[in-house]
């Protein structure tokens, strides 16, 4: 087995390259059953080329890989729009308790009343938090929650014989999942501009509705927006959409700013999804799993996805709402995430939840205020909610936001979100969350200030970042990678 690859240090060696014939990774018991009649030859697998690695070999391999991943548990992670908050360890314990982790979804509900009670209570608590009447925990991520929302809107219009409502209004600052979802459901997307104050352009909205009002299915609005701003005109906007016969869906991805501060249901919103892996602390896991409960006003509750948990006397059960849009997945939603969110809400109570939002908003404004000297603000003059959106370095240095982000990697800190929202030039989105202390915020500000200095004094340092050994590899050539993608070890091995 080669110690070096391509003449450089042994970097990026996969588990397949650690294969040694004869090694064993887990001790398996001998068979307890008599010899059966064999599987027909045509179904019997001929080759199974998996690597053989000892248990310790596997542990070292992945432990080493883990050191190449800064995370919330190693340093501040101010990734805007993602709410990278602390994932309390007691919640993992909850998820791992035998009574919950070993529950099979096909068991009779009488044997799983503990699980159903957790789901029922979570439905109720989430509904209370956002001011909605009915909730289904079925959607498996935020985007699937959006899919449920748009599907409910479509089903409801179809029910009323209004299938001619074919357009979904979406602000130009929206997360990409919003228009992608609308398209999946078959809607045409109408983009509504954001004005110079950072609010929805109500004149454009009014004009469009005047011309086409009859054909509006609804609006997908994020509140606060991806600019980190709460649109004060939301009730007026809701009214305009309703007057044209449309429904207002809110993408609840930014709920972090509003716990105990405002409720969507009080502001004219008809339905929303919530991201448990954002506001409610379930772990991001490097890309999931998530959970995107859908919350609706009473009128829309018959359309909720299957299942919804109900309570009859002392017993809990699942029902399929009478006009349900159907199941979102094989099972009942991501229970592993439900129980973590349940525990998180129970650990805070109403007062604690409000402290989350107040602290998150103070943190974001503090960082924004301290960086305003060196970095452009996206919407001058306005304070932010839970995320501060900046627009690159001041002073016309034209230093790309990308280079700033790469330089941050040299310090073991994951940079803020870059180049989103699309409507902000050289966008940087900073969301500290309530988990960050004043010291870690000051550390982040100091880093950003240092990088701002370097942009002037030593720009090459930014252009060439990140640098080995701060990171395991230098800047990777993704353009070449995309031309002839190598997507498996087998393909790579064939090439070498």
């Amino acid at each position, binding site marked *: 087995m080669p110690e070096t690859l391509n003449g450089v240090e042994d970097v990026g060696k996969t588990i397949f390259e650690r294969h040694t014939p004869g090694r064993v990774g887990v001790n398996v018991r001998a068979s307890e059953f008599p010899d059966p009649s064999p599987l027909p030859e045509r179904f019997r697998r001929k080759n199974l080329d998996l690597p053989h690695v000892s248990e310790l070999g596997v542990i070292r391999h992945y432990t080493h890989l883990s050191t190449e991943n800064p995370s919330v548990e190693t340093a501040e992670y101010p990734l805007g729009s993602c709410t990278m908050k602390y994932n309390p360890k007691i919640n993992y314990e909850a998820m791992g308790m035998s009574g919950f982790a070993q529950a099979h979804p*096909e068991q009779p509900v009488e044997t799983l009343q503990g699980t159903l009670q957790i789901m029922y209570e979570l439905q109720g608590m989430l509904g209370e938090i956002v001011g909605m009447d009915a909730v289904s925990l079925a959607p498996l991520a935020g985007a699937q929650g959006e899919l449920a929302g748009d599907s409910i809107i479509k089903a409801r219009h179809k029910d009323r014989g209004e299938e001619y409502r074919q357009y979904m209004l979406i602000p130009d600052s929206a997360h990409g999942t919003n228009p992608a979802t609308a398209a999946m459901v078959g809607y045409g997307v109408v983009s509504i501009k954001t004005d110079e104050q950072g609010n929805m352009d109500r004149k454009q909205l009014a004009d469009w509705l005047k011309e086409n009002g009859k054909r509006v299915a609804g609006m997908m609005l994020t509140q606060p927006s991806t600019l980190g701003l709460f649109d004060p005109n939301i009730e007026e906007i809701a009214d305009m959409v309703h007057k044209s016969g449309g429904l207002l869906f809110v993408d609840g991805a930014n709920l972090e700013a509003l716990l105990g501060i405002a409720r969507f249901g009080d502001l004219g919103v008809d339905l929303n999804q919530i991201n448990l892996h954002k506001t409610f602390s379930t772990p991001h896991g490097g890309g999931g799993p998530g959970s995107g409960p859908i919350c609706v006003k009473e009128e829309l509750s018959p359309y909720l996805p299957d299942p919804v948990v109900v309570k009859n006397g002392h017993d809990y059960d699942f029902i399929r709402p009478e006009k349900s849009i159907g199941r979102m997945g094989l099972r009942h939603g991501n229970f592993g995430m439900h129980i973590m969110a349940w*525990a998180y809400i129970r650990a805070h109570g109403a007062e604690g939840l409000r402290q989350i939002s107040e602290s998150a*908003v103070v943190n974001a404004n503090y960082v924004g205020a301290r960086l305003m000297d060196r970095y452009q603000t996206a919407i001058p003059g306005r304070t932010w909610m839970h995320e501060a959106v900046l627009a690159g370095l001041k002073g016309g240095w034209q230093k790309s936001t990308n280079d700033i982000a790469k330089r941050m990697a040299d310090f073991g800190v994951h940079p803020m979100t870059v180049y989103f929202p699309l409507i902000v030039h050289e966008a940087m989105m900073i969301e500290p969350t309530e988990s960050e202390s004043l010291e870690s915020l000051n550390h982040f500000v100091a880093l950003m200030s240092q990088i701002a200095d370097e942009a002037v004094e030593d720009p090459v340092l930014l252009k060439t970042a990140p640098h080995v050994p701060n990171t395991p590899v230098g800047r990777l050539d993704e353009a070449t990678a995309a031309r002839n993608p190598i997507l498996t070890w087998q393909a790579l091995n064939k090439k070498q």
Partner: protein
Amino acid sequence: MPIDYDRRDGEALHAYIPQTTEDRRQMLEVISQRFPEVQTVDDLFKDVPKDKRYPNLNLPPALSESELRRSLGALARRNTVADEYGSRPSFLGGGTYRHHIPAAVNAISGRGEFTSPYTPYQFEIAQGTLQTGFEFQSFLSILTGMEIVNTGMYEGASATAETGKMARRLTGRENGRVLVADTVNPRILDVMNTYFQGGGVESFSTEANLDQVVNEQTACVVVQYPNYFGVVEDLEQYAEAAHKVGAKLIVNTYPMALGLLEPPGSFGADMVTGDAQCLGNPLNFGGPSVGILACRDEDKRQMPGRLIGVAYDGEGRRGYVLTLQTREQHIRREKATSNVCTTGALVATRSTMYLALTGSSLAQIADENYRGAAYAMAEISKIPGFKVPDVDQPHFNEFVACGPIRPSELNRRLLDISDILGGIDVSSDRYPNGMLFCVTEMNTRQEVDLLLHGLSVIGYEEGYAGNT
């Protein structure tokens, strides 16, 4: 009115919220230097309509950590489960499976560096996540016999729905028929109908003449391998029927079975889907899982979900990046192949670690599943009052047994008398009082014999005795 809380000077309110009163005071001072109108926290919420601000949330009071543990304990005790320590046997499968999870998987996957980072868009500081994902793609490519596998979807049923859409794009048949075999899990059909609200999903009988069912308006044929009832069907007939009319064959599969069975890729599958929960993940009441989505190399640009590829830095070091991102929502928005964003990365990470540990043993583990189920099938066939209609067909680890009474009643007796979690109710005309039983390597010989005994007693109680 803002809630008045009694806070001792400087004290932070909560273990998860480090901001103290003093911290807040200092930060507000800095903020008001830039924004003079901000004097209190309330001023930061001035855009929220005043009459709607600070709603009173009717929630139970906060629990301390020890109280939280007690509450959780009380709720967990309300559940009756078959745990990994042998508390009682279970023979439930049907798409979610109880397999042995090596202790090492829990230990490594629980590290904060795997659980708490974001999706790996900043490549150089996410090599841990990216390389693990690349290994997942590679492992599943081997298992399924398909060239390309993405980093995962939510789970198998919605992944199958997405391949239906992919098939329409690939064949150019925008409203193409999506044909789903009646031996596919009925819940998968349900999910596909949710995704295809505009219609187009049709169920077909596997006993029908395929050439009459599949035509040039078909976008794809969807089958399950092994099928929902545990039978291993011949995939080649479906591949032939689909390809003859230019349609795609989509196979939803059970990854553990592929430790023993020849993979769908060998029989002409165009796309393969499934759930990787069975590889190294607990039941978790069915969620989270991670969906498998695999396809041919020439079709990869129509595939949804993230893809990880190899890339090199300026000095030739090997690294991993997200690639072909122009398929995805953050770039193409309404023109994306799908809206999918967050999926099941941590579940996939566990599966990767599982396969790394079982590489040398997976065939043997899968074989034990086969042996246990074969024994159970053969023995149940002999119990008076019971039939195993498909006993002569090839299976992996699941099969249907038809009993003398309703499955719900049979299961109640099995639980009350023998403390066994029985099978899934799949009663139909084809399987009267049909129950789907699953035997995995977690079921000992003793447990299976207990099941046989329990069923014999029920057969006897229902008046069946002696020779069949």
